[in-house]
């Protein structure tokens, strides 16, 4: 924020640099009372005049003042204003005290309009860089979490790298019946879909505009809220160089609890089978090289990718890698023992290194900042890496004392390699947590990743075993490859280039009038290349269960958005009234253009002719390229007026009209207003020693939203390739209402802000109530109509909730400053009307890979509930059991509750000790919400999780035979209502949930409390550096995800609800990590 203030100060004093003839020269320095550091950018003015200047980088100033000047005023955002009598002094040393909360703070609001925070009629919570970037997090989105009331993170598996894994933010829960999307991000006025277009190190502050009241001026794009990001700008005077170096290490830390008692197999002890070489198997002779295994014991179902096999007995057996003569362990045995950490051991230690250098400075009529950042990551997934280089710059130049021009740009180029698939049946988490064996030794998989079988095929842990291998005559893997080998062979490379650029100019006609114009572009270029080499095709066995063909694919994608804005501003005072008004217009164009040509990877006919030659002329079947492009234009006009009375009452009104090329011709324009007011009641109170500031605010707003491009102009779909030389055409599956119109959200919001004890403590409270009607919804129709959906205006949903932010400085002494900030937000979206008499409709959030649960809106129920089959219960809550089979009876279409939490929040603490050491920590939490874990279901099915080898009420393992006291103890009632008390064998017990798609045991409460970020920063004392170039230096130690403080009781495996990859939950997600690191910061 401070830098914005500098910039504004520069603007304000632009016109006043002309020297006065009868003057005296005043000089001096301004420092911070807190740490004696010089403060650049402080405005120094002569009271009662418009004369003034600002301090340079060393806090120094020089000002020519009239001889009769009496008082100097020193002001700086975030500091208390100080007035100093001039008297006969010409040299001043002023120490400014921090104004902890900063009620006079200026924030950047919609359309980049800077407003004094106190005048706002809505909640806007801004967060500064030091709170955001506690631990050197490379992801701007996740750094916002826990710091802003009502903001939740979804869909972010931490182990993914780069743009792949940034997840999305959800502000105030959700309200749209059809979408649960990311807010709009605006970086220095440029709208972007991913804030990580800029580097975190270049971010100065973030301001979150939550509801229509704050975002009305952004119009249609702001329906999910707006996150305004302001980047660092230069300071005037001298040149400053800053060097930052961050290093972070990520270790896999959060995995489900596995059992370590039983190994590979389907059938317990019966799996042990002795190999009789001479007898052969099923009439087929064993290969010669297996004669040495005569008389040894093997797991009969050697191909089993489950752990229902024999108990670990510590006796010898022959593992997969001893089967092949090429192996250094050929013929050896090992002990039948668990590998408790085999899955954890699979992952690498992730390393993130980020280095940046920035140069900034300026003279009287210009400022400039340039920064270069290099980010280098090696992920926890073997063979994965991410590299990104960013250059950004911001230059402003005063052409005359009335005209300022400037340019901002941010250019980044990144490269990402690796397979981060986190759905069912991928080669890592999709197999480790569903189809795996507790005896597999990861170190051997790693060491022998290139081991080949006798005939030269890839050797897998999941080979068919000596018996079935002989029966089928195959040496290949049954279902799975060695994951190290797969990741080594398979390549998936993504290159991204992004350019954000903005040129802007302001012309100040006089102190009342100015005009601002700017043009910006956001250009994104994406390139992907992946390949499956011949080695993978050769190792697959399409006749059995593992079908792969060699192949490759390319994608080229270009997206561009341009915005052209013109805005006239007027400010004046009339007696007790202040007027601040704006009128403007925006022209926006979007272009999207994609070209891609991908080969399938599971075809029995497609593949490459010459091995590993990745050209389209080398494919067995022709590959059809696919192109897709669209264009959209929006013209907008808007006006805003704010009237203030005696700095006490403010009334704000806006109106915006949009015309969108995606709406029906003849009626593509629509408008929406907002009005709000704030009342600073403390202006009426003289004594401000306890209540220093108090404000009531209220507002009403509407915001519209339109359609994606081309929704009204459908074309007939064609087959992806021509049949016998002719494309095949199909009718559209969606009917579109020709009279479709934009829908409107109507929102009311009120609240108050107060500061206490000279701004040592503050509170901000907001209540919001938002209604969304006639949303543009694709209504699902009976497919007998020939269509599957009908796009029209329908439905009604509502949300209300509160947001609370408390902050304060409980301790403020010379030795210790303790700042704390707490935020809390609730949102309760409900579905009030659904289209066409429906009682439910699919909600955004989808379904897991096995369709066990789906996110569904229930009429008159909570927004977005998990819905699936459940164990039937009787009126008393007892489980109902089918007595004949011992399995649970079930009911379909049960609502488990909303995926949205009841409340979210965070706590931020910062301790500064002797101005040298700072300790910061952020905790975030949420209560409620439901999620489903597919991994948990499959790892139960496959006998991997701890509960599949638990003890029952007899003290026996549930895997023991029922007649020996084993089995899962089942109680409840039978289908006739009679009490039931029995035992069910463990395999059947766990299989029933998958077989009958019963989600009950795997739907959990998503509550959590988590220590997200911790940092300890040591500022080296200035005196140490008095003899070197260095101006300041600090060293920091950071930690991220160190401690999952608590999860819900039913979340027995401790899944991190803040890092689920899907809205409905976990779908074979990547494991959670803990990160540690350090950073060094030097300024010159």
């Amino acid at each position, binding site marked *: 924020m401070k830098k914005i203030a500098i910039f504004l100060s520069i603007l304000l004093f632009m016109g006043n640099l002309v020297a006065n003839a009868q003057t005296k020269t005043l000089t001096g320095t301004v420092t911070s009372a807190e740490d004696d550091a010089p403060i650049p950018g402080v405005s120094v003015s002569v009271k009662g005049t418009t004369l003034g200047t600002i301090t340079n980088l060393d806090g120094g100033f020089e000002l020519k003042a009239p001889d009769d000047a009496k008082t100097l005023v020193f002001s700086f955002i975030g500091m208390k204003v100080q007035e100093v009598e001039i008297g006969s002094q010409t040299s001043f040393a002023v120490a400014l005290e921090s104004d902890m909360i900063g009620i006079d703070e200026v924030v950047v609001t919609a359309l980049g309009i800077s407003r004094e925070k106190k005048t706002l009629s809505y909640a806007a919570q801004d967060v500064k860089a030091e709170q955001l970037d506690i631990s050197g997090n490379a992801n701007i989105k996740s750094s916002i979490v826990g710091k802003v009331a009502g903001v939740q993170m979804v869909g972010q598996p931490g182990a993914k790298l780069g743009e792949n894994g940034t997840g999305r933010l959800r502000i105030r829960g959700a309200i749209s019946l059809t979408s649960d999307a990311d807010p709009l991000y605006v970086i220095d006025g440029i709208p972007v879909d991913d804030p990580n277009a800029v580097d975190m190190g270049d971010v100065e502050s973030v301001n979150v505009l939550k509801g229509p009241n704050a975002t009305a001026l952004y119009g249609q794009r702001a329906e999910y809220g707006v996150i305004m990001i302001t980047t660092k700008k230069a300071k005037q005077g001298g040149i400053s160089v800053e060097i930052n170096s961050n290093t972070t290490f990520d270790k896999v830390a959060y995995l489900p609890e596995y059992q370590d008692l039983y190994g590979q197999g389907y059938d317990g002890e019966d799996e042990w089978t002795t190999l009789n070489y001479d007898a052969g198997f099923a009439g087929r002779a064993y290969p010669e090289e297996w004669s040495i295994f005569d008389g040894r014991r093997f797991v009969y179902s050697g191909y089993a990718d489950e752990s229902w096999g024999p108990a670990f007995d510590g006796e010898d057996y022959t593992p997969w890698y001893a089967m092949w003569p090429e192996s250094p362990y050929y013929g050896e045995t090992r002990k039948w023992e668990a590998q408790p950490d085999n899955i954890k051991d699979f992952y690498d230690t992730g390393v993130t290194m980020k280095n940046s250098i920035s140069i900034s400075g300026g003279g009287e009529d210009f400022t400039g900042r340039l920064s270069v950042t290099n980010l280098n990551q090696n992920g926890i997934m073997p063979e994965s890496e991410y590299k990104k280089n960013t250059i950004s710059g911001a230059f402003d130049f005063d052409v005359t004392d009335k005209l300022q021009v400037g340019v901002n740009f941010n250019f980044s180029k990144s490269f990402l390699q690796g397979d981060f698939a986190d759905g069912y049946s991928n080669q890592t988490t999709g197999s480790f947590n569903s189809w795996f064996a507790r005896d597999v030794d990861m170190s051997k998989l790693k060491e022998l990743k290139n081991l080949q079988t006798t005939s030269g095929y890839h050797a897998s842990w999941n080979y068919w075993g000596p018996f079935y291998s002989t029966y089928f005559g195959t040496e290949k893997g049954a279902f799975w490859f060695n994951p190290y080998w797969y990741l080594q062979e398979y390549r998936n490379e993504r290159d991204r280039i992004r350019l954000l650029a903005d040129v802007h100019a302001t012309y100040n006609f006089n102190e009342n009038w100015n005009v601002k114009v700017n043009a910006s572009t956001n250009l994104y270029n994406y390139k992907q290349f992946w390949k499956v080499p011949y080695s993978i095709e050769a190792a697959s066995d399409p006749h059995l269960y593992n079908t792969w063909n060699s192949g490759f694919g390319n994608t080229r994608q270009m997206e561009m958005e341009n915005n052209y804005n013109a805005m006239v501003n007027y400010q004046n005072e009339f007696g007790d009234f202040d007027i601040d008004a704006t009128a403007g217009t925006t022209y926006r164009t979007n272009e999207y253009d994609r070209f891609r040509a991908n080969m399938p990877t599971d075809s029995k006919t497609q593949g490459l002719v010459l091995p590993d030659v990745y050209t389209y002329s080398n494919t067995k*079947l022709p590959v059809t390229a696919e192109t897709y492009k*669209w264009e*959209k234009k929006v013209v907008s006009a808007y006006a805003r007026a704010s009237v203030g009375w005696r700095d006490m009452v403010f009334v704000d009104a806006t109106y915006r009209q949009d015309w969108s090329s995606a709406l029906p011709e003849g009626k593509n324009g629509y408008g929406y207003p907002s009005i709000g007011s704030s009342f600073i009641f403390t202006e009426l109170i003289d004594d401000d020693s306890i209540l220093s500031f108090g404000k009531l605010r209220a507002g009403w707003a509407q915001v519209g939203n339109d359609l994606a491009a081309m929704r009204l102009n459908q074309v007939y779909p064609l087959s992806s390739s021509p049949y016998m030389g002719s494309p*095949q055409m199909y009718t559209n599956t969606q009917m579109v209402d020709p009279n479709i119109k934009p829908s409107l959200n109507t929102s009311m919001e009120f609240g108050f802000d107060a500061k206490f004890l000279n701004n040592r403590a503050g509170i901000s409270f907001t209540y919001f109530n938002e209604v969304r009607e006639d949303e543009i919804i694709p209504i699902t129709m009976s497919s007998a109509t020939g269509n599957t959906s009908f796009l029209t205006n329908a439905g009604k949903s509502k949300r209300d909730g509160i947001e609370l932010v408390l902050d304060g400085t409980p301790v403020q002494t010379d030795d210790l400053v303790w700042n704390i900030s707490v935020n809390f937000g609730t949102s309760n979206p409900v579905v009030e009307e659904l289209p066409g008499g429906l009682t439910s409709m699919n909600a955004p959030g989808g379904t897991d890979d096995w369709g066990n649960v789906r996110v569904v809106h229930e009429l008159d129920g909570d927004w977005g509930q998990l819905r699936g089959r459940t164990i039937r219960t009787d009126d008393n809550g007892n489980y109902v059991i089918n007595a004949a089979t011992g399995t649970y009876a079930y009911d379909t279409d049960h609502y488990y509750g909303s995926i949205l939490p009841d409340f979210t929040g965070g706590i931020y603490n910062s301790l500064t000790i002797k101005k040298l050491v700072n300790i910061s920590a952020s905790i975030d939490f949420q209560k409620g919400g439901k999620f489903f874990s597919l991994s948990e279901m499959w790892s139960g099915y496959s006998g991997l999780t701890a509960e599949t080898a638990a003890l029952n009420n007899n003290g026996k393992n549930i895997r023991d035979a029922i007649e020996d006291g084993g089995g899962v103890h089942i109680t409840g009632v039978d289908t006739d209502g009679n009490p039931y008390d029995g035992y069910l064998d463990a395999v059947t017990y766990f299989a029933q949930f998958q077989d009958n798609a019963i989600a009950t045991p795997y739907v959990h409460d998503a509550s959590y409390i988590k220590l997200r970020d911790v940092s300890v920063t040591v500022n080296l004392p200035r005196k140490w550096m008095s003899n070197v170039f260095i101006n300041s230096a600090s060293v920091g130690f950071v930690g991220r995800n160190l401690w999952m403080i608590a999860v819900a009781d039913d979340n027995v495996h401790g899944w991190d609800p803040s890092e689920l990859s899907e809205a409905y939950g976990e779908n074979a997600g990547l494991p959670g990590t803990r990160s540690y690191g350090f950073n060094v910061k030097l300024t010159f």
Partner: protein
Amino acid sequence: MKKIFIALLSIVLLSTGCDDIDFGDTDQNVNGPAEASTSALLSGAITNFSTRQGRPYRITPTLNVQYLVQLVYNQEMLYADGAGFWQSYYVQTASNCQTVIDICNDPEKATDPTVLANGAIENQKAVAMIFKSVIFKRVTDLFGDVPYTEALNSDILTPVYDDQKKVYEGMIADVKAARDMINTSAAGPTGDVIYMGDMVKWQKFANSFLVSLGMQVTKADAGMAQSTVTEALNHSAGVLEDVADDAIYTFDVANDFPNPWEWMRPADYGVSAEFISALRGDGFTSNTTYDERIQYVAADPSLDGLPYGYKTYEADNSPVAGVIYAADTRLPLLTSAYTYLQRAEAAAHGWTSEDAGAMLKMGIMNSYAKGAAVYGVEIGDGAAYADARVADMATAAGGALQVIAEEKWVDLFPLGYDAWSEWRRTDYPKLTPAADAINDGKIPRRYNYPSGEASLNPTGYDKGVAALNPGTDNNTSRFWWDK
């Protein structure tokens, strides 16, 4: 300056009255054709119908008639009572045919040169009507009462479920009208990927298909069945009699339209012991003669196969012949062999003066010839086998009708849909339900209505369910023609 401000403000304020800005063709969709092509829609319907893949669309009926067993993943074999699917029949398939018919009925569009270039209007419309009925026979034979008269109409969001009898009457009327509309001296539709616009063959197809439609309702309405069959058999255009007339869909492997069986994992399926027994003449059916058609059924005819309907198997499997899975194996939609077998049945009912034995023999010999043509295996002309089966007509417990039905079963392999319809109507071959069935232990008689119908079209759904016997939406309830 104030003027600029006032001007801008005026724009904003006046804009409230301004509903529209002309964006030209910004929103134009350049990713595909905006205009319908009757040619590409017709071939799209035929292609979509013929290339459906996935276990529910391809495999379930094949299991219900016990051609095959499932070895590992066996819900379908054990009669899982889950929701059915009809979207791929209505959407982008029958809807394609309907769009072609609508264009042909639109006087303005029907005279457009681009439409006329796709064939004579009456012939385009006739083929679209015939193929639409082919699709609807599939749909109603799977579900019972289904949306028909009000289906495929954008103005009706909840189409009524028509009585199955009404659906049959509609299809029969449509196919007759289409047959009689055909102009064999005018150009056939360019989108016809079955007969490549040969309208003489389409007339024969129409008559053969009418025979199938009529025969299907034998148990429910014998009068309707007989009149439909005899009218078609007596029609001057004739029926499919030559293998060269068979309606066969050819897959375009090079362009990624492979035989959907290719998608099946061979390790998951085997030939049933029942089917092997029938083909070997070992007593499962009335047949006692080795049937050479076993060569395109079993990869190794010497293996016994696994008995149908067990959750797990210990014995050796008999893998399905590789040619069934081959990407380029063609798909017979309606054949002369099947038509001869229908004629044999009509004769056995006494509806025609044809000789049932002669018709049976022609059916079997055409079946052998079709097998040789489609599967490329050398199996002889089948004359001796046919003679033996003609002789069986006198000795089989169920007489001629049993032998004819059993021969339809063998002929229709691997197309389970028609074989299942025949079995439900004739009760031949005699099948024993799966031992480890997971429904109520009976062989399914239908598919359950698709999930969503109960909430999206409740009135229609409730009417459809009420017409079942018993009136529950299960796979063992029976509909109108399945008495």
